C-alpha cells in the first residue's frame, strides 16, 4: 500500500509538470512561425528543381519556409486528399475518381519533363533513329533483334548487329513510366490494348530496375539493352540515346527546347482544368515523349495567411522559377501555357475573396 502511494506520487507530479509544460508551449508558440511555413509532398521526378525553388524562394522571402517530402506522386495525391499537406505534387494528373474525393483541387503545371530512350549497342555509338511504333514493338517483345527489318529501315547506312534486344524498364512506379507508357499508348494501338498507361504497368518483356539509376546501370552494363530514363538523367550521365520520330515525321533529339516546343504545340487542346497529356504533339521540332508535372492545391484555402504565401509562391514559380528549370534539364512552360496557369493561380481564394492582388 505505502509503496503504491510512494510510486504513484512522483509519477502524477511529473505528469502535471509535463502537462503544464505542454500548455505553456502551446500558448507560447502560435501563429508567427507557422504562418510562413508550408508543407508539401509528392512526386520525386521534379524534386531536384522543387528543392532549388524552395531554397531560392526562402532566400528571397525571409521568414518563408517550404518543406517538401518527395514520397512519390501516389503519396502526394493521398496527402492532399486527406489535407495533411498544404500542397501535393504529382506527375500524372489526378483521375476523375481521385478528384471526386478531393473536390476543389486545382492542377498547376510547373514544368515539363521528357523521357529519353537509351540503349547500349556495340558499333552504334549514338543517334539511332526510332519511331513510336518500333519502340512499342520492341517493348511489346515483337521486335527481338537489333537487325530487325523495321529498325534497319529507319536507320539506312547503319550496320546493326544480329544481337538480341534486352528491354529494361522501371520496376518502381514512376512518373517517367507514366509519360513513356502514355506515349506508347498514343502511338501504338497494340500497346494501348495489351498494356496501357500508368505509373507502373504489366510489362510484356524485360528486366525491371529501380529508379533512373537502376535502369541506367543495367543499360550500361548489359550489351544489347534498350531502356528509358528522364532527360536530366540521360544528359548529366551522358548516356547513348535515340532520336524519336515525331508526329510531323521528323527525327528529333531529346532536349529542353524540343520539349518546351512540344508543350506549346499542345496548348490548343488544353482543357480548362489543365489536366492533359501532351505526348506526340504536332510541331516540326517537338520532342514527342514528354509530360507536365503538377502541383496540387485547393482553390479554397482554409487558412488565409498560408493561402497567401502559397499563391505568391506559385506565381513566383511560374515566372521567376522557370529560369531555374533549364540548367536542371526540366523544360520551362511555354508562354501560352504560363498565361493559362496564371489564371488558375489568381483563382485561389480564402473566405470568398481572392488571395493574390
Amino acid at each position, binding site marked *: 500500500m505505502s*509503496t503504491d502511494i510512494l510510486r504513484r506520487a512522483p509519477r502524477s507530479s511529473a505528469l502535471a509538470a509535463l502537462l503544464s509544460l505542454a500548455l505553456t508551449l502551446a500558448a507560447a508558440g502560435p501563429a508567427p512561425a507557422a504562418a510562413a511555413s508550408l508543407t508539401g509532398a509528392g512526386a*520525386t521526378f521534379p524534386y531536384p528543381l522543387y528543392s532549388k525553388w524552395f531554397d531560392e524562394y526562402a532566400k528571397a522571402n525571409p521568414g518563408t519556409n517550404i518543406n517538401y517530402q518527395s*514520397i*512519390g*506522386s*501516389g*503519396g502526394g*495525391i*493521398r496527402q492532399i486528399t486527406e489535407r495533411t499537406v498544404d500542397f501535393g505534387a504529382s506527375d500524372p494528373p489526378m*483521375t476523375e475518381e*481521385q478528384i471526386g474525393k478531393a473536390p476543389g483541387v486545382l492542377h498547376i503545371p510547373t514544368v515539363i519533363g521528357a523521357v529519353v530512350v537509351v540503349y547500349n549497342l556495340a558499333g552504334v555509338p549514338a543517334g539511332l533513329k526510332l519511331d513510336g511504333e518500333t519502340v512499342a514493338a520492341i517493348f511489346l517483345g515483337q521486335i527481338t533483334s537489333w537487325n530487325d527489318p523495321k529498325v534497319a529501315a529507319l536507320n539506312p547506312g547503319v550496320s546493326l548487329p544480329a544481337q*538480341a534486344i*534486352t528491354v529494361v524498364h522501371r*520496376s*518502381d*512506379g*514512376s*512518373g517517367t513510366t507514366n509519360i513513356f507508357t502514355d506515349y506508347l499508348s498514343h502511338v501504338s494501338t497494340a500497346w494501348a490494348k495489351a*498494356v*496501357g*498507361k*500508368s*505509373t*507502373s*504497368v*504489366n*510489362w510484356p518483356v*524485360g*528486366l*525491371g*530496375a*529501380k529508379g533512373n539509376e*537502376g535502369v541506367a*546501370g*543495367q543499360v550500361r*552494363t*548489359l550489351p544489347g539493352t534498350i531502356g528509358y530514363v528522364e532527360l536530366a538523367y540521360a544528359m548529366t550521365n551522358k548516356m547513348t540515346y535515340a532520336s524519336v520520330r515525331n508526329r510531323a515525321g521528323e527525327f528529333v533529339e531529346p532536349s529542353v527546347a524540343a520539349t518546351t516546343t512540344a508543350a506549346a504545340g499542345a496548348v490548343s487542346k488544353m482543357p480548362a482544368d489543365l489536366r492533359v497529356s501532351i505526348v506526340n504533339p504536332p510541331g516540326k521540332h517537338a520532342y514527342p515523349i514528354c509530360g507536365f508535372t503538377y502541383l496540387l492545391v485547393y482553390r479554397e484555402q482554409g487558412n488565409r495567411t498560408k493561402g497567401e504565401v502559397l499563391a505568391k509562391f506559385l506565381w513566383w514559380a511560374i515566372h521567376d522559377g522557370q529560369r531555374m528549370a533549364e540548367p536542371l534539364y526540366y523544360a520551362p512552360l511555354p508562354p501560352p501555357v504560363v498565361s493559362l496557369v496564371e489564371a488558375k493561380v489568381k483563382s485561389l481564394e480564402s473566405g470568398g475573396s481572392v488571395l493574390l492582388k
Partner: protein
Amino acid sequence: MTSPHLQAPRPARPGKRAARPPKGPAGPAEAHAGEPGGTAVVQAGPGAADPQSHPRRSLGDTLFKVAAGGFAAVVLLIAVGMAWVMTQAARPSIRAFGLGFLVSSAWDPVRNAYGALPYIFGTVTSSLLALAIAVPLALGIASFLSELARGPLARVLGFLVELLAAIPSVVYGLWGVFLMAPWLRNGPQAWLSRHLGFLPFFRGTPFGVGMMGAALILAVMILPTISAVCLEVFRAVPRAQREAALALGATRWESTRMAVFSYARSGIVGAVILGLGRALGETMAVTMLIGNRPQISASLFAPAHTMASVLANEFAEASGDLYLSALIEIGLVLFGITILLNILARWLVWRTVGRFGSTPAA
C-alpha cells in the same frame, strides 16, 4: 515453444528450483534453449536461507515480472496490431480477389487485376536457395573458428565475420549489380548455359541479374549472420563434450560432428531461422539483383520478383485504392509466410531433437 527435450540437456538443479518462491517452474520454462539457466538459481539461493529479506525480494520479483511481462506483451501487441491494421487496409483486395489472390499470377495496375503467386514463389525460392548455399558454408566457417583456428587468427576472422553482418544491404546490392552480376553473366552463367543449357534450370539468356544473382547475394548477406550465431553456439559447447569424444578415439571431424554439432543442434536451427528471416524480408539488395519480373520460371537465369521488393518498388506511387490494398495484402501474405516458415523450422527441430532424445548432454 520450448519442449521438454530442449530442457533436458541442461543440468537440472531440482533442489534449488523447488526452493524458489511462487510459481517456480514458470521461470525456466520461459528461458531459451541455448541459454544457461543459472540466473534464477542464484537469486533463489540466498533467499531460501534468509527469511528476513523475503518481502523485499518478492516485491523486486513482482516488479521484474510485471516489467518483463509488459515488454513481452509489447512484442505481442505489435505483431497483433500489425496483422490487424494490414488486414483492415487489405480488405478491398481481399474482398475483390478472395483466396484467388494467392494463386493468381496477374499483376496489372492498369486493369486492376492482382495476384501474389509470382511474388510468393520468388520470395520463397530465393530465400531457400540462399539458405542452401549459406548454411553449409556458415557451418564450415563456424567450425573452423571454434574448433580449428587458434589465437589471433580466430579472433580476427571472428571479428570480420561479425563486421560483415553489419554492412547495409544497399552496399551489398551495389556490389552485386556492378561486380557480381557482370561476372556471373560472363563467367559461371555463360559456362552453365553452354554446358548444361539442356537443363530447365539453365535455360534462356543469362543477364547476370535474375533468380541466381538474387539467391547468391542473399547467401552472402545471411552468411555472416548464420556463422556468427553458430560460432557463439559452438563456443558454448562444454569442453568436456569434445574431450570425451576425443578420449573415445574420435578424430577431430568426428568429435566436431558428434560432440559439437549434435549438442548445438537447436542453436544451429536458431541461426538458420535468423538467416531465413533476413532473407525473406530483404528488400534493397534483392530488388537490385532479381530483375523485378513477376513470373514463375524454372530457370535460375530468369528474372523474378519478391514480395518485399514489389512493396518497396510500387508502394510510393500506387494511387488506386484497390492497387494499394493489393500491395498491403502482399505484405500480409509475407507476414503469414514468415510465420509459417518459422513454425515449420521449429517443428523440424522439435522432431529431430525428439528423435535423438537427450543424447547430447547425457
